[in-house]
């Protein structure tokens, strides 16, 4: 766990009254959030709580209706290009090119993120691909066509593709959804290994996942963050032991404090 009182850390993500409405429905409501550099911040919530919408706004995929969000000081509406250079996203569904091999998928994404101004060239891309293959232990499937991979391998590839552009902020939207226990644990190890290099926002339905990986946890209900903090802080707030009980307590309105 990161030291909560570390005062010199930089704000990687900062939102102020971030709101998204679809007609009459408010998907994200006045979200005020600060995530520090290098943190793994988990967003918990039931379906429709606004987690994915939040991530979409923070990755410039969706424009906020109101409020402001900044990634390393760059505005997600006004400075999209700067933001996009700094973020990587792994969506709920495995977003891979199905007819490309694992290596081709990585090479493709590395090419998209290669900075023409620094002209890293082919060698830079090759090195990046090899590094990512090693980090994610994808070497044994590097020549396999993506559509023939198992769910676990596809998820790994999807996350690998998200980090190949060396993002400073990584969004993992329910990365282990639908995976069996072993594949999930395997993926946790990969995510754990990324923690030191980038700021990660993780959305998940699995309490044990957030417990195992997150430095801080926020619980979203109906588009609002109703409480956030370290697990110990959440337990103290609610008087419950364990994240599942904390979550149920908050979801049923027994505990938590509005931000």
């Amino acid at each position, binding site marked *: 766990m990161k030291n909560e009182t570390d005062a010199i850390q930089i704000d990687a993500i900062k939102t102020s009254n971030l709101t998204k409405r679809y007609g009459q429905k408010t998907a994200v409501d006045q979200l005020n959030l600060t995530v520090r550099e290098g943190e793994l911040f988990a967003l918990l919530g039931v379906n429709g709580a606004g987690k994915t919408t939040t991530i*979409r706004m923070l*990755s*410039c*995929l*969706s*424009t906020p209706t109101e409020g402001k969000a900044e990634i390393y000081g760059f505005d997600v509406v006004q400075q999209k*290009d700067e933001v*996009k*250079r700094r*973020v*990587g*996203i*792994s*969506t*709920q*569904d*495995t*977003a*891979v*090119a*199905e*007819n*490309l091999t694992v290596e*081709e998928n990585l090479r*493709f*994404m590395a*090419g*998209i*993120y*290669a900075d*023409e101004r620094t002209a890293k060239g082919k060698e830079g891309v090759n090195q990046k691909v090899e590094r990512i293959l090693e980090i994610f232990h994808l070497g044994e499937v590097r020549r396999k*066509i993506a559509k023939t991979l198992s769910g676990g391998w596809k998820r790994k590839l999807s996350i690998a*593709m*998200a980090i190949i*552009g060396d993002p400073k902020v990584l969004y993992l939207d329910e990365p282990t959804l639908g995976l069996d226990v072993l594949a999930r644990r395997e993926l946790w190890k990969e995510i754990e290994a990324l923690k030191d290099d980038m700021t990660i926002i993780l959305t998940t339905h699995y309490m044990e996942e957030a417990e195992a990986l997150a430095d801080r946890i926020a619980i979203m209900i109906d588009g609002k963050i109703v409480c956030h903090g370290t697990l110990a802080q959440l337990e103290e707030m609610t008087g419950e032991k364990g994240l599942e009980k904390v979550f149920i307590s908050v979801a049923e309105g027994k505990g938590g404090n509005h931000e």
Partner: protein
Amino acid sequence: MNKTLCFAKRNLIEISRDALSYIFCIAFPIVMLVVMTLVNESIPKEANMTIFRIDSLSGGIGVFGQTFVMLFTAMAVSRDRSGSFLIRMFASPMKSSNFTNGYILPMLLVAVVQWLVSFAAAVVVAKVVDYDVKPQGLLLATVVLIPSAILFIAIGLILGTLFNQNAAPGLCSVIISLGSFMGGIWFDVESSGGVLYKICKCMPFIYCTKSARAAIHLDFGTEAFLIPLLVVTSAAVVLTIIAAAVFNTKMKADLS
């Protein structure tokens, strides 16, 4: 490698690993070339029907093949839209033009390869039926067919953007039928005259076929070649601009 070429390469690999691409984009036009030549051989010479003669037929087949490139464009775009792949790409530093050009370029390459294969098949068929076809005309048609390829790719891009994986191929089938019927590929629209010809003249398809046939005949007349080529090129430019705008607008609407 820039982003457009990167995306184009990915699309080209995706197409090249789909067996249907070879069947519809390469094999089917060649089969039609052979079948229609056999039909032509069965027509009595006195009928003076030249539309299926290899020099006319190959131009029509060139355009007919491009309608399948349109189908593949629509399928590629609608398939990408149906999953999360494009969402990931929209969160990347790619610009709108990277996407549209990245779809157009590989399809254009497929269209050129398709024509070159048809061109080789036309030379062989011409030898077999003992008809003197001008190879330089066929080569020229490779260039002349580029605007019409872009036109069909743009239509595919529009349909793939606006409709889902199930609807887009169906609508493409309508355009394939319309294009080959109104483009004068399978019958002589000009000789039929009347309202049908007037309608055909309002569509770009007939100009695609006319300019390709004129190139193969090395006929550079204003009526036969220049005007049809100008019409096709203008339509290709307009439809490409529309396709880019539709793609951009629809993607923004889908994501918001």
